[in-house]
């Protein structure tokens, strides 16, 4: 029997965890809660609107999209996206012979397809990946070099643009990551020789600018080779960038290794596992999961360090754009050209970043 209440009960509001705030309530609480916040909201909104209107006006409404006459672009007040349409081939492919660009397109398709396939956890099976990468490497080599199957031979000194960036990036990561792991393990090894070598290597190469390392790799290293032995310049510079990358990654990985509790080593020892079995099956899987965000950082940076290839006279996508925009007819529209390059870098960098976040989620849910 309910008792008649003369007063309203104290707590009538019942908290419903599934209830969502209405839009009006959200706006009121987060944007207009006080006088100062309202003022700030209005000012920020005004600035943002002004900016977006400018972008819309300059980039879309008054922009010139297709023309081969730079005068049309000069006459217009908006962006000249036509410069990209005009110049996209040398920007994307550098000095590579014009008629052979189809080979580069095919190469990029094979490369991206292989990479995307390899990044999916369900394909993480050495028996699947090793042959795949061998086939991909051979076909990319054939496509880029030529000289066989009736294809015209193109030496590495004429490679450039986005494919060059991709190759340098892949070489850096594929060669650099294993070296990074070995350096990190070496720095923590009980053997004083391994430890000494790792420390000297890491500290020396970390403390020196990348461009110096690359100069040494390109100009000084051949002096140590016996007469007549020539190592391709592109290969030399790739190894230089890869080793620099490896030294930074080694310290990141060492941080992850330090986070593994001693009990893991002891459990592995009590099961009679050898050093390498313990390291590859127990320690590294845990350490790499721990330092994944920092590893991703350096991998994205490695993608941008590929621009250093200019010191041996090769033009990656950024330096090719700079060179192409020297054209006096189109020189005025360098902003649009660089925005395009920035968009390409942003696309790949963001893709890497999204993938890394996905991997972190998989780790957290136990799928990886």
């Amino acid at each position, binding site marked *: 029997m309910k008792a008649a209440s003369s007063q309203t009960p104290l707590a009538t509001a019942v908290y419903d965890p599934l209830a969502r705030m209405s839009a009006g309530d959200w706006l009121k609480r987060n944007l207009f809660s006080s006088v100062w916040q309202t003022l700030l909201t209005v000012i920020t909104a005004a600035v943002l609107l002004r900016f977006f209107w400018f972008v819309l006006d300059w980039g879309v409404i008054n922009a010139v999209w297709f023309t081969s006459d730079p005068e049309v672009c000069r006459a217009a007040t908006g962006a000249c996206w036509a410069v990209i349409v005009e110049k996209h081939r040398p920007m994307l492919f550098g000095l590579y012979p014009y008629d052979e660009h189809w080979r580069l397109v095919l190469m990029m398709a094979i490369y991206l397809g292989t990479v995307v396939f390899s990044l999916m956890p369900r394909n993480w099976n050495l028996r699947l990946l090793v042959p795949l990468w061998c086939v991909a490497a051979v076909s990319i080599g054939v496509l880029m070099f030529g000289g066989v199957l009736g294809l015209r031979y193109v030496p590495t000194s004429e490679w450039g643009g986005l494919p060059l960036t991709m190759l340098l990036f892949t070489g850096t990561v594929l060669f650099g990551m294993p070296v990074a792991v070995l350096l990190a393990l070496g720095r923590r090894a009980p053997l004083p020789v391994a430890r000494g070598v790792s420390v000297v290597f890491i500290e020396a190469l970390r403390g020196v600018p990348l461009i110096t390392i690359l100069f040494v790799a390109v100009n000084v290293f051949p002096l140590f080779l016996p007469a007549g032995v020539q190592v391709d310049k592109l290969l030399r510079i790739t190894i230089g960038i890869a080793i620099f990358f490896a030294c930074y990654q080694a310290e990141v990985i060492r941080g992850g290794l330090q986070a593994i509790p001693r009990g*893991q080593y002891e459990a592995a020892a*009590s*099961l*009679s596992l050898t050093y390498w079995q313990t390291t590859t099956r*127990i320690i590294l*899987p*845990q350490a790499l999961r721990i330092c994944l965000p920092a590893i991703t950082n350096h991998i994205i940076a490695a993608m941008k360090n590929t621009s250093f290839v200019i010191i041996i006279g090769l033009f990656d996508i950024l330096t090719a754009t700079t060179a192409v925009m020297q054209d006096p007819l189109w020189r005025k529209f360098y902003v649009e050209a660089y925005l395009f390059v920035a968009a390409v870098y942003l696309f790949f960098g963001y893709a890497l970043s999204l993938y890394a976040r996905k991997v972190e989620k998989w780790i957290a849910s*136990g799928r990886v």
Partner: protein
Amino acid sequence: MSQSTSMQAADAPIISLHNVSKWYGQFQVLCAVDLDVRKGERVVVCGPSGSGKSTLIRCINRLEVHQEGRIFVKGLEMTDNVKNIDAIRRNIGMVFQNFNLFPHLTVLENLTLGPMLTRQMKKADAEDLAMHFLRKVRIPEQARKYPLQLSGGQQQRVAIARSLCMEPEIMLFDEPTSALDPEMIKEVLDTMIELAQSGMTMIVVTHEMGFARTVADNVVFMADGRMVESAPPEEFFGNPREERTRTFLDQILKH
């Protein structure tokens, strides 16, 4: 140490510590410890914290290195010789206070890793072995789970099963129930009692005196790095010889 006749070998202790001492820097943590353990014997090592009991059993499988004295396991001496260390470790299973399961592997993978890598077992055989021991510790349904999804008591039982998968002759327990809730202590102790009844040689460092009374053949009391007293449980609990033992028992049995 001669292992001549088989008759003599049957009586010879499976683990033998002679005059073992260990220092951490200047601090002496083990002082001239002598211990003989026969095959199938169950030894409980107890004592106040800092007495060196964990260090003692960790010396037996070389997780700690002793500076003086000699340690023999199944006739092999424990020295820097890597082959000896490896041969000895294969015969000893260890269960730790904080379980030390591999968190990135499932329970089944935790158990099959050792046999597959060190005994070159095929995956199917290793999994059969693993399920056999999981059934023995009464948690076969947890095989596909990750360690962090299990309770403490279940994790410790997985750890026991993991050591058993190596089919050792000796099991070392370093305070196996000290990190567990009281409710889970019972399930782990029951597992250990069953193991003891199956004839396994066990050295258990623990504060669980009930377990010592039920299962132990010999109770060893350590204090300040020395072995103070060593006696069968009736004698140890009923009529301790040393004063130090009496003080310890008073403290620990008060509640």
